Structures are given as C-alpha cells and as structure tokens.
C-alpha cells in the first residue's frame, strides 16, 4: 500500500493567558493510500488539533505534514473535514449544499452529480429540503454527501457521529463502510469511542493525555463486516482501553 499522508514530528503549543499550553509533542505516523486510521485518546488530549494540523486548518509549530510526498498546502477539496457539529449550510437546500464545492462544471452536470450522491447516502427525495427540515441523521448524510461529491482523496472525520444517538451512530457507521467499499477514500477518523474505532478502522493510534504523544498502535485485522460482540474484538477493546488508563475488567 503506497503511503498517502506522512506526519513527521508535529509539535504544537497554544499560547494562553496562563502561559504556553503544549498540545502535541512530537507526533509522527503515516497513513497508507485508502487506509482508514482511527485516532483515539482521552478527551482534551489534542486529537482535534492534530486533525486540524493534518487537514491544513492549523499550522504546527514544528514538524511537517506531507501528502503524496508534497508539503501540505492550505485546506482544499483534496481533503474534506467533517466535524462533530456539522457545517451543512442552513440557508441552502440539500442539493445546493451538495453543489457548493463543484465549481467550474456545467450547471446540469453539477445537478446530476449532486443528485447521484444524495441518492447514495439515502437522501433521495430530499434534494429541495432545507437543513432545518431534516433530522440529525439526515443532516449527517447530507454532510457526508457534500464531502464525497467533490471526490476528495482524503476524508478527515472529527467525532463525526458522536452527536447522534447510539442506534443512529451504529447505522451511520455501517453506511460509511458501505460507501467506502464503493469509493475508496483515505480516512483519518478522530473519535473517543473505542468501539467505533474498532468497527471502522484498519489501524488505531492511541494518543496519550496532553501534551499528546503517540502511545500505542493497534492493527485491526478483522475482515468486514465485523462482529463487534466477538471475543477477538472484545479482547482488542480491552487492550486499547488499558492503554487509555481504563481497566475495563473492574468497570
């Protein structure tokens, strides 16, 4: 598998009134082309900052992010960020949202493409709806479709489903896996949910608490569809939780 993203020695310190706050301390790893890597860690450890740095929204104080061997440029549609709170434009319809990033094409082409992806995420029939007329799960689908429609090479997902209830969360994971089996993207997923990470990822990186360093790496060798109740999955979950300082045997 060729390497897609290389993160080299990233250091990041925030400056606050109470003095400097080191967030990332020499984090290095790489992500293969088409690989789904999950980043887990205690809350507030700097997972989101790490993702923002990789996606180009934040500059590291030190270190380098390269994509396809080239230094990371400002954010572009090469890699789309999907965040926890969502950013579907509420003043545009679903279809207009999906067409937002498609510039430089004929209007009818953009419409066809937008409708194709709306159908892919199960929003057929809601193209002319406004976001405030949709449910939380449908909003997530719209957000995902808007990202996919520009055919990004990378998806950066920051706790994408954590605002959804447990059932919807599970359904969206399966949906994401189905879409990724149709169109292979490289995915960096930040989550605090270890089970979600095991469900989705090829590899799981565990960060330490702040300032975050790369504490452990786990391969997830199970083929899809994964049975989350299997003994092997549970074993992996226990091992990851132990890295995070949670002894789940006593829990």
């Amino acid at each position, binding site marked *: 598998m060729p390497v897609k993203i290389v993160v080299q020695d990233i250091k990041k310190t925030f400056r606050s009134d109470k003095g400097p706050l080191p967030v990332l301390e020499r984090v290095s790893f790489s992500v293969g082309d088409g690989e789904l890597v999950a980043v887990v860690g205690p809350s507030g450890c700097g997972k989101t900052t790490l993702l923002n740095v990789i996606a180009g929204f934040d500059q590291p104080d030190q270190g380098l992010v390269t994509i396809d061997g080239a230094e990371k440029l400002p954010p572009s549609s090469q890699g789309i*960020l999907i965040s926890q709170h969502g950013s579907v434009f509420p003043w545009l319809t679903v279809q207009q949202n999906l067409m937002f990033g498609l510039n430089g094409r004929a209007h009818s082409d953009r419409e066809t493409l937008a409708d194709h992806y709306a159908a892919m995420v199960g929003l057929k029939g809601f193209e002319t709806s406004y976001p405030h007329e949709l449910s939380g799960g449908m909003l997530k689908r719209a957000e995902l479709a808007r990202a996919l429609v*520009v055919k990004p090479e990378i998806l950066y997902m920051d706790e994408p489903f954590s605002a959804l209830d447990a059932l919807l969360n599970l359904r969206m994971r399966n949906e994401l896996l189905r879409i990724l089996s149709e169109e292979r993207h490289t995915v960096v997923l930040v989550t605090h949910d270890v089970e979600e990470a095991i469900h989705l990822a090829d590899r799981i990186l565990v960060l330490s608490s702040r300032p975050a360093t790369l504490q452990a790496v786990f391969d997830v060798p199970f083929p899809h569809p994964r049975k989350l109740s299997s003994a092997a999955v549970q074993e992996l979950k226990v091992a990851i939780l132990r890295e995070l300082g949670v002894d789940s045997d006593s829990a």
Partner: protein
Amino acid sequence: MERLKKLLPSLTVLALLIGAWWLVVVETQSVIFPTPWQVVIGTGELMQNGVLWEHIGASLFRVGSGFLLAVAFAVPLGLWMGWVRGAFTTLNPIFQMLRPISPIAWIPIAILWFGVGNASPIFLIFISSVFPMVVQTTSGVHTIERRYLRAAANFGVSRATVFRRVVIPAALPQIIVGMRIGLGVAWLVVVAAEMIALRSGLGYLIIDSRNAGNRYDLVIAAMIIIGLIGLLLDGLMRLLEGLKAVQWRYAR
C-alpha cells in the same frame, strides 16, 4: 377562530380603554377633547374630502424613499465593515458616535442643507434608519459561525464565492432584523419631521389640525392612523422573515 381567541384579551383591553376615554370626556364635559365618536366622524370627514389620502401618500413617499436609500447604503457598507477588519476598525467608532444623536437633532441641519421641500424629511429618515441597519448587518457578518467559513474554505472556492454564497446569506436574517428596526424608526421620524416646515404628511396634519381651531378630533384621528400604518409596515417586513432561506435563524 383560534386567532380570534388569541386576540380577544387585547381587544377587550382596547374596548375598556375606549370606554374609559368616552366616560371621562362626557363626565368632565370637555369642550376641546373629543369623544371617540367625534374622532370617528372626524376621520370620515378627512376621508371624504380626500386630504387624508394625500397626507398618507406624502408620508409614505418620504419614508419609502429615505428608507430605500438607507438600505442601498447601509447593507453594502455593513457587509463590507463586517468582512474587512480594517473597514470595521476605521468606521465603527464614527458610527457609534453618530448613532446616539437623535434624528430630531438633525432637523436644523436638514433645513439648512435641503430646504423645506421633500428632501429634508427624506434625509432625516435616511439618517435615522441607516445606523441600525449598518450595525445589524455588520454584526450579522461578525456572528457567522466559524464552522461555515471553514467548510467554505475547505471546498477551495474563491473569496468572491464565499462572500456571495456564505457571508451574504448567513447575514441575511440579521439584515432583515435591521431593516425592520430601520423602517420602524423611519416611520417615527417622518411624523416628527413633518411637524416642522412642511405642508403635507400626517405630521403636518396633526400640527395643522391643532393650529386651525383646536381640531383635536383630527389630531387623534391622525395619531391612530399613524399607529395603524406603522403596524402594517412592520407586518410587511415580517413577511420577509418568512422566506425559506432565512427561516433557519428564526425557527428556533
């Protein structure tokens, strides 16, 4: 039927107020202050000889011109001040200083610059409605949530597209709020402006009725008409809030 039920308490209070007014005028045997019925008769008189429509038309024309000029000036300026940091830091202190000056204070200057024709009240209305609209539009841009601007940047669209497709629509609900405030203030000010040196409009009607033989029935008739038209204008602006593309902001 539901609506009628909701309106019932206000209508009852209104009826009680009119009743009290009537009672007091009859009891005190006032010769100047009219009874509600005299006001109705006076209004009918005004409608019949056609002067009422002329006065209403004159006032609405002034409010319309001044307000539209203010919209055309304030909305682009507010968007610019919201979007360009330097424009905000340069102009905001000046606006904050001009804003608390009552439009009435501008009357002498308006007469000096524009004389006693239509231009003076139009200028005063412009002055009175332009500031709230600039302020609301600017804050509309400033309060755009970062996640939307970031998403737009993520898709690599041009700055012009971000402005057109994100900044303007995101600020639109606030712009409409500003327009509602602006039009309300404009209607307040036109009446005051017309009380001075003008020969038409509802403000003039009030002053003229008093001067021409203490016709307080016409004074009160004009006041009630001013109130009703103000209500109507606000209702018109409220229609804008019903637009699909801005409901996201009000729906909560």
